[in-house]
């Protein structure tokens, strides 16, 4: 029986239905409620050079990136980009709310083909400047060619109230290696919806890390498809959330072929009234024998009103695999705190040290020292701004 539900203002505006809590994948993130007003798509917004410059500098990787590909309000910026977009067709066609929204509204996106060994990181930088509330959607297609090796950063920064929808398809060719670091630092009034789809060929290495610390509402989907044997994927992430932030990460690790390894580690710091959600599903298909898959999520709840929900799932159809998952949540270890304080470290500083140590474990997947340093610096800055004056 179909129940007719009146469309919300946002849905009328979009001409699309939004996912809601009765859909299993969206039970914690009801976009019908969270998208609280219309965010008209395809708006042309002129950005001042000053605003763009300020946002360019706000990326933690301003000094680390070798080449940048910059998008301002959903459009490729010739002026600020060092790499040209190529002609690459989008291949991922999935009926999924974020992808559907993206298919309807994307204005532009990065299209990059990477061959050989790229020595310095490439940063895809998405900037949204302050203007009337609107939807900014980009569709990115990245090809890491056979035998290539690259470090790719994806940074989202902005100011004001907007909805950012970002879909990224990444194909990693045979024997190739990709280190990818995504940093979501959208404006505090922004909504960030994304889907990242990895397709991994045989004998590839993927090291993926996502830092989630911006936006009032965040939903990030990730899919990793193992298409070739001998592939090794590490997918890590860190949440640093405060205020009333809401961040929901849905990860699907799809083992389709034998002899692959997957590791997921998510470390989530949740303070104030914020809420973090990690839904991680590992699927081992019938042919994917000798799969070695482990997944864990750990949350540090810094206030009584902070919340973390974990939904780990394993779906295994092969009979010769090693798979496991674990999820924990709790507050800071009192023995650790006492030990630090007994050496003269104040309660506030001891907590900061322990929080940084907790989050830092997720940074271990990052090989590039400059990027790791930039993230450590960011997390220390977050801690000093966010936790100043608290004990």
């Amino acid at each position, binding site marked *: 029986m179909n129940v007719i539900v009146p469309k919300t203002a946002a849905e009328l505006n979009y001409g699309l239905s939004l996912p809601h809590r009765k859909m299993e994948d969206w039970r914690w993130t009801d976009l019908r409620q969270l998208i609280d007003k219309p965010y008209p798509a395809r708006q042309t917004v002129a950005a001042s050079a000053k605003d763009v410059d300020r946002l360019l500098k706000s990326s933690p990787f301003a000094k680390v990136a070798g080449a940048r590909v910059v998008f301002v309000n959903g459009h490729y910026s010739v002026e600020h980009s060092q790499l040209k977009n190529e002609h690459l067709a989008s291949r991922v066609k999935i009926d999924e709310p974020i992808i559907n929204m993206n298919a309807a509204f994307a204005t532009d996106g990065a299209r990059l083909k990477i061959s050989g060994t790229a020595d310095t990181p490439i940063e895809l930088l998405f900037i949204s400047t302050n203007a009337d509330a609107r939807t900014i959607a980009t569709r990115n297609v990245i090809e890491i060619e056979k035998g290539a090796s690259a470090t790719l950063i994806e940074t989202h920064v902005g100011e004001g109230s907007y909805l950012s929808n970002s879909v990224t398809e990444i194909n990693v060719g045979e024997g190739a290696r990709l280190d990818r670091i995504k940093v979501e630092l959208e404006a505090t009034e922004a909504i960030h919806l994304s889907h990242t789809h990895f397709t991994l060929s045989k004998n590839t290495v993927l090291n993926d890390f996502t830092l989630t610390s911006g936006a009032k509402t965040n939903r990030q989907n990730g899919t990793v498809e193992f298409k070739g044997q001998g592939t090794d994927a590490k997918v890590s992430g860190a949440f640093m959330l405060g205020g009333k932030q809401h961040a929901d990460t849905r990860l699907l690790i799809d083992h389709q072929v034998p002899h692959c390894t997957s590791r997921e580690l998510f470390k989530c710091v949740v303070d104030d009234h914020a809420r973090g959600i990690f839904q991680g599903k590992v699927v081992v298909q019938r042919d994917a024998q000798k799969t070695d898959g482990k997944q864990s999520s750990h949350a540090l709840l810094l206030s009584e009103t902070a919340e973390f929900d974990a939904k780990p799932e394993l779906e295994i159809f092969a009979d010769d695999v090693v798979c496991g998952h674990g999820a924990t949540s709790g507050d800071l270890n009192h023995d650790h705190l006492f*030990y*630090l*304080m*007994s*050496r*003269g470290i104040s*309660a506030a500083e001891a907590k900061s*040290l322990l929080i940084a*140590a907790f989050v*830092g474990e997720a940074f271990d997947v990052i090989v590039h020292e400059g990027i790791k340093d930039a993230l450590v610096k960011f997390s220390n800055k977050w801690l000093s701004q966010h936790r100043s004056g608290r004990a």
Partner: protein
Amino acid sequence: MLEIKNLHVKLADEDRVIINGLNLSVKAGEVHAIMGPNGSGKSTLSYVLSGREGYEVTEGSVTYKGEDLLAMEPDVRASKGVFLAFQYPIEIPGVATMQFLKVALNSQKKARGEKELSTPDFMRLVKERAARLNISPDMLKRPVNVGFSGGEKKRAEILQMAVLEPALCVLDETDSGLDIDAMRVVADGVNSLRSPDRAMIVITHYQRLLDYIVPDQVHVLSKGRIVKSGDKSLALELESRGYAEFESEAA
């Protein structure tokens, strides 16, 4: 330096009384040994002095350099010179040993209004103190106490003491889990810190540590109070006769 008067302590969430009318006076320059059977309250005393949560002082006072020690937070006690060498040093994954030592030392200096150490000066200080305790640079690169053997943990505690240079050192069963060679290294480290301005309370179950760290006074703790005090010969006496008589005496 330290004046403990009629101290009564119970566990915060249980009615069990652990310290039951303890009196102790320690002057600068002195080394006091506190000996006693398991469960006599030795570790509780060390935790109450360092400010660990979970204990409730129901009666009595602890005065340190003329101030009410019990009113201070653990970090304040530390910056005023109180140091506890833990019986079971805590492992803290993700916090680098050098960073921890530097933050600790400079926090204390800042609290005392002293000038903080620069990174090169700090590195020199730690390297010099570590070498004396046979602590390898590799150990210093690891997170605090993580993956350290029992003996390494104890040496790391003494290193912290040597770097922080406290006025009152409380050593809680520093000898436990150490073989003779390791104990000698630790004892040498402790002895090198003996000074007229510094007092030490050495808590131990066995007499053997006191062969190396020779105390000025020895106290026998039983059922939460000091039941006998004497000079270093008391430790030898305990070694040969055991704690049985004191346990019945206190009862």
